[in-house]
């Protein structure tokens, strides 16, 4: 095989890995959108907030330390060595559930039957609130995240693939970060678990029912508000997983909430109401932008990854606005 082909293959595999990240964030969007028709702009910030909280618990940070110090003139910052990873993840999840619950009680319950644009504006407000609240609670500095996932290039894969190139050519083997492989594995597990849950449990069925028809859901005894708390908690969980992966890779920092914007083109490709769509859309964007950068990026001055996804989405909007898997919108006249 020619090294050129092998390099392209490497780009594709790395694109798939990046795409999984986009898929995860998009999945969080789809869950909420299906159940309540809300496009949750705050999904990315939620991932950031979850990651911050996890690191805070892990390292034993005192929440709101800065605020406390300013008011009382104290100098506290850590209460100890922190919790072990498993406990910290469980506690973070509890925080996300509490957050979903409060959100429903304080904000969402007043938003029933509002126009989509108002709901959307609400989530923009929510995004800024969470960003500020996260800063206030855990500080604005960049943090490293270590949940014990292995990382670094896979030497085994490099050795394994070195021999693939035709003899005489210079090829040093394929480079893939083990962390990405782990992330992919966890993401796949998560999606399978979510699918099984929604197919074979009472609550999963109730989630699908609410996504399908509110009136019918109420009639069979489903409380929409309970379901919304569950859905926001679930998407908080998905955000936590995304936050862990991205945080382990690039540190916990504000840019995390920006990758969430990449989920928008992913959703345009996959359709806002389709879970498989979110996943496949994420993979297409991931692979597409890496391949594009690799093949013609140089000609265009590089950094095409910043805009490729959006241009692709725009093209998509022109010939298939409902996305690859979304339901076709037929206006009844």
């Amino acid at each position: 095989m020619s090294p050129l082909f092998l390099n392209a293959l490497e780009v594709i595999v790395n694109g798939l890995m990046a795409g999984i990240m986009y898929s995860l964030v998009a999945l969080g969007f789809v869950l909420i959108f299906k159940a309540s028709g809300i496009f949750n702009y705050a999904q990315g910030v939620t991932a950031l907030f979850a990651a911050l909280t996890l690191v805070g618990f892990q390292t034993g940070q005192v929440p709101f330390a800065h605020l406390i110090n300013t008011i009382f003139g104290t100098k506290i910052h850590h209460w100890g060595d922190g919790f072990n990873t498993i406990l910290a993840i469980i506690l973070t999840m509890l925080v996300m559930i509490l957050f979903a619950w409060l959100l429903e009680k304080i904000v969402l319950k007043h938003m029933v039957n509002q126009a989509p644009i108002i709901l959307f504006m609400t989530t923009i407000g929510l995004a800024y609130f969470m960003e500020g609240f996260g800063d206030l609670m855990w500080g604005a500095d960049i943090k490293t995240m270590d949940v014990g996932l292995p990382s670094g290039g896979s030497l085994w894969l490099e050795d394994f693939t070195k021999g693939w190139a035709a003899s005489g050519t210079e090829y040093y083997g394929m480079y893939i970060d083990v962390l990405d492989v782990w992330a992919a594995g966890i993401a796949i597990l998560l999606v399978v678990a979510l699918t099984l849950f929604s197919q074979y449990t009472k609550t999963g069925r109730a989630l699908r029912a609410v996504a399908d028809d509110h009136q019918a859901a109420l009639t069979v005894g489903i409380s929409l508000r309970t379901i919304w708390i569950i859905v926001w908690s679930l998407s908080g969980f998905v955000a936590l997983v995304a936050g862990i992966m991205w945080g382990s890779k690039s540190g916990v920092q504000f840019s995390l909430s920006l990758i969430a914007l990449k989920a928008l083109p992913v959703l345009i490709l996959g359709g806002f109401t389709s879970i498989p769509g979110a996943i496949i859309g994420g993979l297409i964007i991931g692979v597409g932008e890496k391949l594009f950068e690799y093949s013609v990026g140089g000609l265009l001055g590089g950094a095409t990854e910043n805009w490729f996804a959006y241009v692709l989405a725009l093209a998509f909007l022109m010939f298939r606005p409902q996305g690859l898997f979304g339901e076709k919108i037929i206006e009844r006249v």
Partner: protein
Amino acid sequence: MSGENRIGDTILEVKNISLSFGGVKALTDISFDIKEGEVRAIIGPNGAGKSSMLNVINGFYHPQQGEVWFRGKKRVAMKPYQVARQGVARTFQNIALFKGMSTLDNLMTGRITHMKTNLFWQSIWAGPAAKEELEHRERVEHIIDFLGIQAIRKTPVGRLPYGMQKRVELGRALAAEPKLLLLDEPMAGMNQEEKEDMSRFILDVNDEFGTTITLIEHDIGVVMDLSDRIVVLDYGCKLADGTPDVVRNDQDVINAYLGVSHD
């Protein structure tokens, strides 16, 4: 309509219900009761307020005046899901199914008020949750057999013909094993054969399970055959109330139906 002792005490009573939308008076001072085990019909011309009455009973509408008494207690204003949890199931005039879900799943949602295991057990699909899931599945399979819809168990209901959808919607309501079953025009848009099937199901449900049924229906022949007692509404007011024989011979009813005062 076998042995009269199948009919018991009052299960639901509405007292002096008035409901309006802006200037439109959908219901004016309506009172009637429903007895345990009976088939109670509500009839009347289009726009008479029949569907509005069901919506009041199951909590979609909240009347400006009047009371609803259920099983001997005055009911506070309730959301539809709370009414459902008290044992009231219903179907809709224009069908409200989960169109993307299979027949089986639609019927399983009917069991939701009976499923008790918590989210934790459900998440790992173990212990009580798995057992519960299978138990309820069995009950639902009984209903599928009863309605003769085995062939469409796995079909997304959105793809089914209209008559079949009506049948699945009845199945979902039955799956809830309701104390009171509300049917809004269960035979609308059906052909003669489908109507006969549906009538038989309604009678069988009432006979075999003793389920109390309240139904709205435009086909007077069907109503007279099925019901124990009939309430007649017209322009939101109660025109008559009684057995089929009484209603059939009521002059006001005859006038309303023959279009003496309006079309």
